[in-house]
């Protein structure tokens, strides 16, 4: 079916060897472009509402009660979460590296470490949300906290889905071994995982750093 342009050589990584593999990987990059637009819109909402409701320009200020982000954010926890996710992106890269050497056991090991790091990130994030809620900052408190939870929550939801997806892929590699098909799946889920850290860079910068400095 898929008559695909693009050549295959002896050194081509396994995931690029099938025409479906090449199509799916390329298609996933396109999908990531869409995800960028998605997060950009959420950022647009966040920055606009932050500017009006927290920085308090243009006649609005600190509307709707509720604590300020600078009162609740703590750099230590956020830095740890950032390093957890960054490291998980690194270990994910190592997993692909092992995959290309056909070292399936090592690949699995690095993937599981990636998952555990991601899970640790999520656990910290959930604790963070619970802590903020106790301090009076819930998703329905005011516009600022709605957009905070929307941005971090959407990212966290993506991480959760990523973990679930990776578990499914690990199951398939365990059952069927490393084939062009499973290699393609591992690679694409790794792209997704890297992308989540890619987005987090901007969350860390735009939400937490700015939030600590801005008010």
């Amino acid at each position, binding site marked *: *079916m*898929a*008559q*695909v*342009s*693009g050549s295959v050589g002896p050194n081509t990584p396994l995931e690029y060897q099938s025409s*479906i593999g*090449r*199509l*799916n990987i*390329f*298609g996933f990059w*396109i*999908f990531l*472009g*869409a*995800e960028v*637009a*998605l997060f*950009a*819109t*959420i950022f*647009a*909402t966040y920055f*606009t*509402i932050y500017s*009006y*409701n927290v920085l308090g320009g243009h006649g*609005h200020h600190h*509307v*709707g*009660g509720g604590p300020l982000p600078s009162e609740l954010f703590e750099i230590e926890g956020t830095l740890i979460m950032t390093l957890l996710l960054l490291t998980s992106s690194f270990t994910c890269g190592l997993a692909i590296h092992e995959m290309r050497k056909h070292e399936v056991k090592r690949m699995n090991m690095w993937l599981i470490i990636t998952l555990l790091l991601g899970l640790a990130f999520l656990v910290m994030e959930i604790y963070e949300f619970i802590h903020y809620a106790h301090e009076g900052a819930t*998703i*329905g*408190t*005011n*516009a*600022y906290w*709605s*957009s905070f939870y*929307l941005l971090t929550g959407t990212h966290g939801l993506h991480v959760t889905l990523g973990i679930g*997806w990776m578990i*499914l*892929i690990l*199951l*398939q590699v365990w059952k*069927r071994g490393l084939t062009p*098909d499973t290699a393609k*799946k591992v690679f694409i889920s790794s792209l997704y995982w890297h992308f989540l850290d890619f987005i987090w860079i901007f969350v860390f910068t735009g939400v937490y750093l700015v939030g600590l400095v801005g008010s």
Partner: protein
Amino acid sequence: MRKGEVKMFSFIKENLILDDPLILTANIMIFLTVIGIIAVLTYYKKWKWLWTEWLTTVDHKRIGIMYIIAAILMLFRGGVDALLMRAQLTVPNNDFLSSQHYNEIFTTHGVIMIIFMAMPFLFGLMNIVVPLQIGARDVAFPYLNALSYWSFFFGALLFNISFVFGGSPDAGWTNYAPLAIEGSPGPGVNYYLLGLQISGIGTLLTGINFIVTIIKMRAPGMTLMRMPMFTWTTLIASFIIVFAFPVLTVTLALMTFDRLFGTHFFTLADGGMPMLWSNLFWIWGHPEVYIVILPAFGIFSEIISSFAKKTLFGYKSMVISIVAISFLSFIVWVHHFFTMGGSAAVNNFFSITTMAISIPTGIKIFNWLFTLYKGRIELKTPMLWSLGFIPTFVIGGVTGVMLGMAAADFQFHNTYFLVAHFHYALIAGTVFACFAGLVFWYPKMFGHRLDERLGKWTFWLFTIGFNVCFLPQFLLGFDGMPRRIYTYGPENDWTFLNVVSTIGAVGMGVGFLVLVYNIIYSFRYAERDMTGDSWGVGRTLEWATTTAIPPHYNFAVIPEVKGLDAYWIMKEEQKAGQKPFVEYKPIHMPSNVGTPFVMSVFFFVAGFGLVFKLWWMAILGGIGVLLCMIYRSLRSHKEDEGYYVTVDEIIKTEHNHKQYKEA
């Protein structure tokens, strides 16, 4: 009755709308139609056929036909909405429709025409034609293609049942806050938010699908600059889709959260910003109208060059223009709310970009005119639509430039001048293209052409009716008539122009009926086409198939492309006595699959649950979707195996039509 049954009964009773005579009639007709369809399928024992041939198909040609059937049904519904509005506005102080009812009708008219008529119609044509035009056997991701269609279908279904169950959204197709939040309690706006969200998923997937298909699956020899224009516009429109639709996804989700979960993005209280909705909506909304116009431009390019028997003039500048248009389309959006209070800097910037976008569009118009110049023009129905498009769309375009001047827009904004402008652009642009494309590629879908005489009647009735309907509306705008009002007083002196406008609308309705009659009449009486090149003027590869309706694998042998207008070159070579070397090999085709349909049903269930805040139903639907995704992940290696079309079968299919001729 047990408690659960009582609750369900009262839920249905509360929401089923039986008191309005028009809606009651619609309810009864829908009920009878559904019973009728079930009866026919059962009587003729066609349930299995429906499942195996249509509900589980991944064939781009079949999916395309399903899109177009849905679009024509939606055109009917949207058109009835329009006629109801025109009826209400014909005379002053009319009480044919209450203001509430009128608001619901103009909301559904807008949403249906843009999201559920224009988009699926164009997607249908894109699906049928583009893989053939690039010499491919199907799109890159047939499974996703099916999912795109069914999520569109169930999103549209969810939106459409609103007027008989629960009440339609009534805040305009633009759904501004705070009217859409604090001002619209009830399920109506929820239908809008969820219906568009679900069908938007399908649109995004289509965008991704066609980008990959066009970039990666072209026949050998078809460089980017040898692609047909319709393929180019599909590619560029797909890029716009990929970047614009996620904006809509977020925006709809934000308001859904505000309405259902107590957040404060656009609320009046607690720091919400209603104007932020307008901003985000139009960041999607403006690229959206370019999504529906660029493929239309592509259709006209194909038809004009085919029936003028000339290569398209200025191919390179056409490509550069559509790329420029797609880039500019993302930086003009504030022109939809010049009057919302932006600073001079903001309004000026967007005014300039808005006027700039007319330049590449103008270049395209000139290229079409130069293509026609000294061509040997055949005035077949598709060409008539194209010729009608040029001057009519230009009226839409130049009035757009008038509106784009921010200071002037303070006079025009939200008057009938605006209504006339966008109808001139959308109808002359998109709807004419849909009709033209339907007639032009009809033989590819059904193996025969639509009747020419009836086609010409449709064109003239619709075009004349359209101008009679909308030209007066420019004048009404100058006379100060605002849009979205359900009635007006006799002292406004708007009556005469409104009467004229209604007469035009009736003309359009009659034109549509002639088209429907044409479809039925041609099905019964039209001569079946024997070749793939039904009009005889085909220049691109979709006409290079051996039969009128392409075999399910499209091409027995992938053609070798030697230049622009690939099929034209092939025909010239054949005339010169060159015969292409043909060696058949088994063809790998994708298998049918049922999960896209099932997943979309779960989307519908989840959406319906959210509309009515039935959380258990929403969660159930959500789990269903998730399960389908897990199933797909675990089974994709089996589902994607496909099957092989044997060489014997290819030989039989390819030479079957010749036997028919000999007999």
